C-alpha cells in the first residue's frame, strides 16, 4: 500500500467516524429535546453531551485555533523561553490538562445546574452545551492563548497592557467584588448543607484536625510525600465519615455538632479569618490536597455511576416554572437561566486560571486548544452530570430540598401539600423516609445544590454499591466532598482577596503593601473576611433562604467577568488585524452583555419584589411606615435589616453593571483605534507575530 492511499483511507475512515459521532449526537439530542411525557434515560443526556463535545472540539475549537489564532508550534512559549524549573516548566500535554482541569473545576458547575433544574432538565442542558461550545471554551482558550503570547501575564495585567490603565483598574475592582461574592455564596452553600446536621457537621469539623495531622506529617516527618499524606488523610476522613453516623445517633454527642445556620455562619467566618493568617503548610495545603483528589475521584465515580446504573430522569424536560414563578430562583428563563448556570457554560473566573499558572507551562502553542478548549468541555461535562443527579431524584423531593421555608413551611405535611399543589405529587411519608434514608432529621429547604446533588449521587451510587443501606454514607460523602473544596476555596480565596485589598490600599498607603507584616496581614484578612462574612450573614438571615437572593448576584458577577475577558479577547483579535474572524468572540460577548445587563438591571429595578432589590426594599419600607411586620421578619429591627440588605445587594448588582459598561466603553475605544490602524498593534512578548501576521 502506498503512503498516499494509506492517508486517503485514514481520512475516509476518519470522515466516517466523525459522521457517525455527529449522527449519534444529533439523535441523542433529539431524544433529549423531543421526548415529552415519558421519562428518558439519563444516558441520552450523557451521549448527547459527549458527542457535542467531540464535534465541537474537532470542528470549532480547532478551527479557532488554526484559522483564527493561527497557533504556531514553532514559536517558543514562555515555558521554553523563561524555563526556571519552577513556575515556567514545559509540561506534557496530558499532565497539563489535568492541572488545568483541577484548577478550573470547583463547586460552581455542580450548584448552578441543580438550581436550574427547577425549569426542567432541558433548558439548562441546552444552555450548558451551547454556552460551553460558543462562549465558555472559546473564552478559556483565547485567554490562554493571549496570556501564553505575553509571558503568561494575568488577566488584569493583559487588560492594562492592551486596553489601558483605567480599564485595568476597573477590571481589578470587578475581580475583587466577584471574589467576595463567590466566597459568601460558597460559604452559604456549606451553611445550608450543615445546618441541623450533626453527621455532616462532625465530618466537616473533623477535616481540621485531619489536615493538621497531614500538615505536620508532610512538613516534618516525611517532607514532600504528597501521596503518603493524602492516603493518611483519606483513611482518617473515611473513618470520620463512618463515625459520623454514630455521632448523629448518639444522644450525648449529636447536640455538640448540631448548629443553627447563624451559628454555623459565625463559625465559618471565624474559621476563615484564622485559616487565612495561618501558615499554608499547616491547614490550607493539606486540605487542598485532600479536596483536589477527592474532587477528581468523585467526578470520575459519578461518571462511572451514571454510565453503569443508567438511571431514569424523573424530572420532566420542562416544568411550569419556565414562566419565572419558580421557588428555587426568581425570574424568567431569560435572563435568569443564563446567569444561574455560570460555571459549566461560561465562567469568567476561568479567565483568571487561564492567565495564571497554565500559560507558564504550555510546551508548544499546539497544546492551546486541547488544554484551553478541551479543559472547559470537561468542566461542562461535570455540569451535565450535576443536572443528571438533580434530575434522577423524585421532583417532589427536589422541590422540597430547594424551596425556601417562606414558601413551603417547616413541616413535611405542609411542604408536601404545597409541592403537590404545584403539580409534583409527593406525600409527607416520602419526605420523611428520604430524610431517614440519608440519615438526616429533615431535608426541607436545603437549597444550595450540595444536598440535592448529595441525594442524587446517593441515589446513583446506592444503585452501584450498598443499596439503600449505604445511602446515608453516600449522602454525607457527597456533602463532605463539596464542603471540603468549598472551605479550601474560602481559605485560599480569603488570602487572594487579602492580597488584592493590600495592593489596592497600598496604592494610597504604600506601607500596607508589605505582605509579610503581621499588622497588615491581620488588617487585610479582617477586611476580606468582614466583606464576605457580612454578605454571608445577610444570606443566612434572608427570608428567601439566601441562595435565592445571592446566587443570581454571583451568576451576574461571574458572567460579567466573562464579558470583560471576552471584550479583551475581541480587542486583541482586532489588534492582531483578525477582524474577519472577530465574530468568534463578538457573538458570545454580545450575548453575555445582554444577559448580564438585563439581569443586573432587573435585579435592581424590577417592580416585582421577588426579583428587584429596590422593589423588595420598598415593600418592607411601606409596611414599616404603617407599623406592620411582614413575614419572615418578626421584629421591627429585622424589618430594617431586610431593607438595608436590599440596598447593599442593589448596590452590588449596580456595581457589576457599572464595571461591565466601563470596560465595554474602553473596549470600543481601543477597538476603533485598532481598526483604523492598518498595522498589527497587539503587544506580544516575543515580537515575532507583529511582523509576520498581517491578515
Amino acid at each position, binding site marked *: 500500500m502506498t503512503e498516499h492511499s494509506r492517508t486517503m483511507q485514514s481520512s475516509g475512515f476518519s470522515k466516517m467516524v466523525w459522521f457517525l459521532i455527529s449522527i449519534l449526537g444529533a439523535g441523542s439530542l433529539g431524544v433529549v429535546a423531543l421526548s415529552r411525557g415519558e421519562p428518558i434515560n439519563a444516558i441520552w443526556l450523557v451521549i448527547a453531551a459527549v458527542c457535542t463535545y467531540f464535534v465541537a472540539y474537532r470542528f470549532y475549537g480547532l478551527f479557532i485555533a488554526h484559522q483564527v489564532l493561527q497557533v504556531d508550534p514553532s514559536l517558543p512559549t514562555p515555558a521554553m523561553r523563561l524555563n526556571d524549573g*519552577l513556575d515556567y516548566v514545559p509540561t506534557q500535554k496530558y499532565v497539563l490538562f489535568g492541572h488545568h482541569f483541577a484548577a478550573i473545576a470547583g463547586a460552581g458547575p455542580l450548584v448552578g445546574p441543580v438550581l436550574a433544574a427547577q425549569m426542567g432538565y432541558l433548558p439548562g442542558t441546552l444552555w450548558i452545551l451551547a454556552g460551553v461550545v460558543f462562549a465558555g471554551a472559546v473564552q478559556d482558550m483565547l485567554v490562554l492563548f493571549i496570556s501564553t503570547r505575553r509571558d503568561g501575564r494575568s488577566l488584569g495585567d493583559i487588560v492594562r497592557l492592551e486596553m489601558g490603565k483605567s480599564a485595568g483598574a476597573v477590571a481589578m475592582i470587578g475581580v475583587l467584588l466577584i471574589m467576595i461574592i463567590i466566597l459568601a455564596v460558597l460559604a452559604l452553600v456549606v451553611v445550608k448543607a450543615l445546618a441541623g446536621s450533626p453527621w455532616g457537621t462532625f465530618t466537616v469539623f473533623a477535616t481540621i484536625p485531619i489536615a493538621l495531622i497531614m500538615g505536620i506529617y508532610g512538613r516534618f516527618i516525611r517532607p*514532600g510525600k*504528597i501521596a503518603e499524606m493524602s492516603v493518611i488523610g483519606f483513611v482518617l476522613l473515611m473513618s470520620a465519615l463512618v463515625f459520623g453516623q454514630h455521632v448523629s445517633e448518639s444522644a450525648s454527642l449529636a447536640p455538640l455538632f448540631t448548629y443553627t445556620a447563624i451559628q454555623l455562619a459565625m463559625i465559618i467566618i471565624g474559621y476563615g479569618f484564622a485559616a487565612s493568617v495561618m501558615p499554608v*503548610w499547616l491547614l490550607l495545603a493539606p486540605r487542598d490536597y485532600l479536596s483536589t483528589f477527592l474532587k477528581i475521584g468523585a467526578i470520575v465515580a459519578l461518571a462511572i455511576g451514571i454510565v453503569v446504573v443508567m438511571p431514569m430522569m424523573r424530572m420532566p424536560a420542562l416544568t411550569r416554572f419556565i414562566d419565572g414563578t419558580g421557588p428555587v430562583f426568581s425570574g424568567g428563563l431569560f435572563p435568569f437561566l443564563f446567569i444561574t448556570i455560570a460555571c459549566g457554560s461560561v465562567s469568567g473566573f476561568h479567565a483568571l*486560571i487561564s492567565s*495564571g*499558572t497554565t500559560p507558564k507551562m504550555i510546551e508548544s502553542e499546539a497544546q492551546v486548544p486541547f488544554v484551553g478548549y478541551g479543559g472547559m468541555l470537561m468542566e461542562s461535562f461535570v455540569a451535565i452530570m450535576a443536572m443528571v443527579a438533580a434530575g434522577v431524584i423524585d421532583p417532589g423531593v427536589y422541590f422540597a430540598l430547594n424551596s425556601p421555608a417562606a414558601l413551603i413551611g417547616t413541616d413535611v405535611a405542609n411542604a408536601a401539600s404545597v409541592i403537590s399543589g404545584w403539580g409534583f405529587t409527593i406525600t409527607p411519608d416520602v419526605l420523611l423516609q428520604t430524610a431517614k434514608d440519608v440519615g438526616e432529621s429533615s431535608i426541607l429547604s436545603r437549597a444550595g445544590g450540595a444536598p440535592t446533588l448529595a441525594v442524587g449521587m446517593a441515589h446513583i451510587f446506592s444503585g452501584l454499591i450498598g443499596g439503600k443501606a449505604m445511602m446515608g454514607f453516600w449522602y454525607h460523602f457527597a456533602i463532605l466532598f463539596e464542603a471540603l473544596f468549598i472551605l479550601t*476555596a474560602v481559605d485560599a480565596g480569603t488570602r487572594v482577596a487579602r492580597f488584592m485589598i493590600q495592593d489596592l490600599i497600598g496604592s494610597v498607603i504604600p506601607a500596607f503593601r508589605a505582605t509579610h507584616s503581621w499588622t497588615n496581614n491581620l488588617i487585610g484578612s479582617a477586611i476580606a473576611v468582614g466583606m464576605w462574612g457580612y454578605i454571608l450573614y445577610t444570606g443566612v438571615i434572608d427570608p428567601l433562604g439566601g441562595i435565592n437572593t445571592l446566587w443570581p448576584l454571583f451568576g451576574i458577577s*461571574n458572567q460579567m467577568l466573562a464579558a470583560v475577558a471576552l471584550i479583551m479577547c475581541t480587542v486583541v483579535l482586532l489588534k492582531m488585524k483578525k477582524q474577519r474572524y472577530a465574530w468568534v468572540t463578538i457573538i458570545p460577548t454580545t450575548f453575555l452583555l445582554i444577559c448580564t445587563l438585563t439581569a443586573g438591571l432587573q435585579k435592581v429595578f424590577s417592580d416585582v419584589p421577588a426579583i428587584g432589590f429596590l422593589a423588595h426594599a420598598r415593600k418592607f419600607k411601606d409596611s414599616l411606615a404603617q407599623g406592620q411586620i411582614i413575614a419572615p421578619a418578626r421584629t421591627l429591627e429585622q424589618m430594617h435589616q431586610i431593607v438595608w440588605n436590599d440596598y447593599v445587594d442593589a448596590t452590588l448588582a449596580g456595581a457589576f453593571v457599572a464595571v461591565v459598561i466601563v470596560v465595554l466603553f474602553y473596549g470600543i475605544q481601543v477597538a476603533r483605534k485598532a481598526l483604523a490602524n492598518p498595522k498589527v498593534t497587539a503587544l506580544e512578548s516575543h515580537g515575532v507575530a507583529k511582523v509576520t501576521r498581517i491578515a
Partner: protein
Amino acid sequence: MVLPRSRELLERARRRTQYLWSMLVQTFRLMVGVPDYETYVRHRQEKHPGIPWMSHTEFFRERQRKRYESGAGKCC
C-alpha cells in the same frame, strides 16, 4: 525464537507502564501545584551548572508557599 520476542514485548510493556505511571504521578502532583523535582534538577544542572539547587524538601516547601501567594487559586 519465541522467547526473546516475547521478552522484548514484555520489556516494552513494562517501560510503557512505567512511563504512564510516572505521568500519572506527575499529573496528580501538578494538580496540587508541585511540579516535577527531577525536571527542576535537570534544568538547574544544564542551565546553571556549578550553582547549588534546592533539596527535595526545600523545593517542596518553596512550591507549597508559592502556590497560595500567586493568587491564581481555585475556581468557584
